[in-house]
């Protein structure tokens, strides 16, 4: 995995606040998900985001986004990669996960808490992400998800 961290402290005059960018290229391999999540969470913690958000909400949401990207996006193709980019500012943490797949329509994912779906063993990933972070955005193609945690 290749991790690059760029810090801009103290803030440049034109920026409203300090900003730290972390980018990580992850192979299409479910075995590395935990390590990738730890790496990103540790750097976010070092940037001073509230420990509970980093420790739990961010970790679970990133874990879900990475597994979705690997399994459904890249369809386990080892030739493909997943790109993670994180921007930590004074007000928010934004995590973008992009795969090399064809994308999907998030509105087609059924509610996993429906009584008829409750005993299914899959289909809770995106639901959990939406519950755990403050904002979720997709690009038009549907192969990139951006998850935002407000720091307030």
């Amino acid at each position: 995995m290749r991790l690059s961290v760029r810090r801009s402290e103290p803030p440049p005059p034109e920026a409203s606040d300090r900003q730290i960018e972390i980018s990580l290229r992850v192979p299409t391999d479910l075995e590395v998900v935990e390590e990738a999540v730890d790496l990103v969470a540790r750097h976010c913690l070092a940037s001073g985001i509230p420990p509970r958000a980093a420790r739990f909400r961010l970790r679970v949401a990133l874990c879900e986004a990475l597994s979705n990207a690997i399994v459904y996006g890249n369809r386990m193709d080892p030739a493909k990669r997943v790109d993670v980019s994180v921007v930590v500012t004074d007000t928010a943490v934004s995590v973008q996960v992009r795969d090399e797949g064809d994308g999907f329509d998030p509105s087609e994912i059924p509610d996993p808490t429906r009584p008829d779906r409750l005993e299914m063993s899959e289909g809770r990933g995106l639901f959990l992400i939406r519950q755990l972070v403050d904002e979720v955005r997709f690009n038009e193609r549907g192969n990139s998800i951006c998850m935002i945690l407000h720091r307030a």
Partner: protein
Amino acid sequence: MSFTFRKDEAKGVVVLGVDGQLIVGNRHELKQKVLDALDDGERKFLIDFASTGYIDSSGLGVLVSLSKKIREVNGELRLAGLNDDLRTLFELTKLDSLFAINESAEEALAAF
């Protein structure tokens, strides 16, 4: 991350501890441990999350599928040791309605 495995002989309960994460990369290992124990005739299972960091939807999915398998053979599954964060995952997904959840492993063992 690793799993601990022991048998509480007094209660006849297989106690599994999840040390670290229960996620997409290791869920099959937990599933296989329980399936092997079912094959060996075990019917009572306790999964203790007191040393668990986080669980993802794949981990939750494995618990759902194990709960079904254990129920099919008239067995019993209890979960214990969930901290507030972990418990929130079960509540958000409404899986708290599907599982018997106890505060601690001791309490769960007493309930079998």
